[in-house]
């Protein structure tokens, strides 16, 4: 029974990581940028939720506002910071991403203060019992929403014209441009989709961890990044797999009483994967043509 309960725990945590890892992976896949500000988008989503709920919006409206807010933030970020650097060396863009991450954290601290703020997203409470195992509704909803989002993403990427364009840009930007694809708007669209997933992830995250601080996105983003690398950065199924793997790893380490090693275990996995299989679990090793 305990194992089933812990399994559900891991599944819930894993689906949150997976949703966030998708944003990392998609952006990397298309412009080879590690968007380190991605975790902070979730933090902003948390503050949007607090204000939307405090302003008296219906919870469903608040959720939509969070997703829209995250998406808008990502588009602004992309237009202001990354578009001007499209032809710059990748290291410059990477450093810019770190800069934006710090900027967002410090702006949040300036405007909202460093004090942790409670956030209460009205979610159905209670639980259903299957045999001797009781599963709380938020867990089921989290897992369900995450799976639905991933199915929807898969459809967008594989089944629509936009998705086809995204894959084309990811494969060869210049060739895609020659074929008449507007590369800039496809990149912006990719950022927007990644951020919308992060917005959904933010809601699910703050249901489970109902406290917002200006730095809440830092560790979360880092772990999602590791999940993306573990799965194979740039690969959408890889990000999902990596997210669930990290979720299971954390819950197992905590459950066997080694909680002081939780973060250590996650980073150890990063080191091992980089040493043993740098392309990730499902990534194809890239052959550099000279």
């Amino acid at each position, binding site marked *: 029974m305990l194992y089933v*309960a812990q399994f559900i725990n891991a599944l819930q945590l894993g689906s949150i990581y997976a949703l966030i890892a998708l944003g990392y992976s998609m952006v990397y896949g298309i412009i080879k940028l590690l968007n380190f500000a991605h975790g902070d988008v979730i933090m902003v989503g948390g503050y949007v939720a607090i204000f939307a709920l405090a302003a008296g919006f219906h919870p469903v409206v608040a959720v939509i506002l969070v997703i829209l807010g995250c998406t808008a933030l990502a588009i602004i970020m992309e237009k202001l910071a990354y578009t001007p650097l499209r032809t710059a060396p990748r290291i410059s863009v990477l450093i810019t991403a770190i800069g934006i991450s710090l900027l967002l954290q410090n702006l949040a601290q300036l405007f909202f203060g460093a004090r942790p703020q409670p956030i209460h997203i009205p979610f159905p409470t209670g639980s259903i019992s299957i045999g001797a195992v009781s599963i709380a509704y938020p867990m089921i909803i989290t897992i369900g929403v995450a799976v639905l989002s991933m199915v929807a993403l898969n459809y967008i990427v594989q089944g629509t014209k936009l998705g086809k364009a995204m894959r084309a840009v990811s494969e060869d930007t210049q060739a895609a441009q020659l074929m008449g694809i507007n590369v800039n708007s496809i990149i912006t669209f990719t950022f927007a989709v990644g951020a919308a997933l992060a917005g959904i992830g933010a809601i699910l995250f703050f249901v489970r961890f109902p406290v917002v601080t200006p730095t809440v996105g830092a560790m979360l983003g880092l772990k999602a990044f590791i999940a993306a690398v573990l799965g194979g950065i740039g690969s959408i199924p890889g990000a999902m797999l990596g997210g669930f793997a990290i979720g299971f790893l954390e819950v197992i380490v905590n459950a066997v*009483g080694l909680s002081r090693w939780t973060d250590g275990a996650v980073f150890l996995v990063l080191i091992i994967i980089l040493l043993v299989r740098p392309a990730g679990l499902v990534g194809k090793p890239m052959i550099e043509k000279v």
Partner: protein
Amino acid sequence: MKKRSIIALVLALMMCVALVAACGETPPAGPTGPTDPTAGGTTNGTDASGEEVTEVHIGLLGPWTGGAAYFGVSVRNGALLYIENFNAQGGLQIRVTDRDEEGDSARAVTMYHDLVDAGVTAIIGSVTSGPTMAVVPEAFADGMPMISGTATHAGVTVNQDTGEVFTNMFRSCFIDPFQGVKMAEFAHEILSARTAAVLYAHDIDYSIGLMQAFVDRAAEIGLEVIHIETFADEAPDFTAQLTNIAAANPDVVFIPVYNRHTALIGPQSAAAGVTATMLGADGWAGTLDAIADPSTVEGAFYLTGFTYESEEQHIIDFIERFEAQYGIMPNMFAAQAYDAAAILIRAIEGAIAAGLTPGTDEFKQATIANMAATDIEGVTGRITFDRYNNPQKTAFILQIIDGEARFWGTF
């Protein structure tokens, strides 16, 4: 509370003590001579020859400025309120000389000697553990009665190297592990719990100390601790640990952490299906401000050193008088200092009743002996002392009901 900084302070002060001891040994503490004449000279009230003692001179030591000033000023307000009220009754008058040690251990030692030179018979102070521990060995050598309202470190009353008790030093506050003992007894006696689980932070000294004390006391009284889980201070995810606790299904779960943790533990324990009664310590104060959904900690009990919610008349009186005097509500530190002053002055009255002259060694010894035998109903609970001069107090228990921390009673 802030253990890391306290430890840093302790280390720093150890260096300072070593320095001060090394350089300071020769001039002041040659023989124990200085104490007698100066003290005898300044406490000019009376002789022991039948005349009535009208005045006793005591010292008040603490950080009125500097980083610990918040605590220092609270303590001074609390102690002076008691003394002014006492003096207003007429009869014996308590004269107070106060010295600012600025939160600095070396300065605290200097200020202590300054007070000795001024001829005080006893001292209330100091406030934080570091400076207090710098002063205590000197005061112990001088046989100076001392009481602190707020210094929580175990080393304040017991020499940590030799295990020797500083018999002259008392305090009116809880030491940290005492809270763990209290909650184990509360679970066993009041809640009739048979089994308990513990969830604590493995990288916070406060949390470790309380956990250990709870587990040790539980073993003594027959409360079975069936499960212990830990987490790291900065980690937000306790779900796996709480799921294990839910599976172990204890009667109570002791969670000796700060409110930044309880804000996360409450909702997650509800989701994990923990049904055990939650128990906490003074770190739980402020939980209801930090938590998003108070219903997730409904029914939890936690302990505090002082509460506004008490219905006992002498506590209500104290709060009213304090507010009238200073325009603010008393905090826990002020209340504990008020009790420290009460304990000391009661002991001094006893020494006077025995016909001794303030300032003499006999008077100080009698004051110390009277303090050790203390049994008073203070504003922070009923206080007696154990053989380490740490208070055996009744604690105030609060319970969270309908999203409010309600006063459950004293224990």
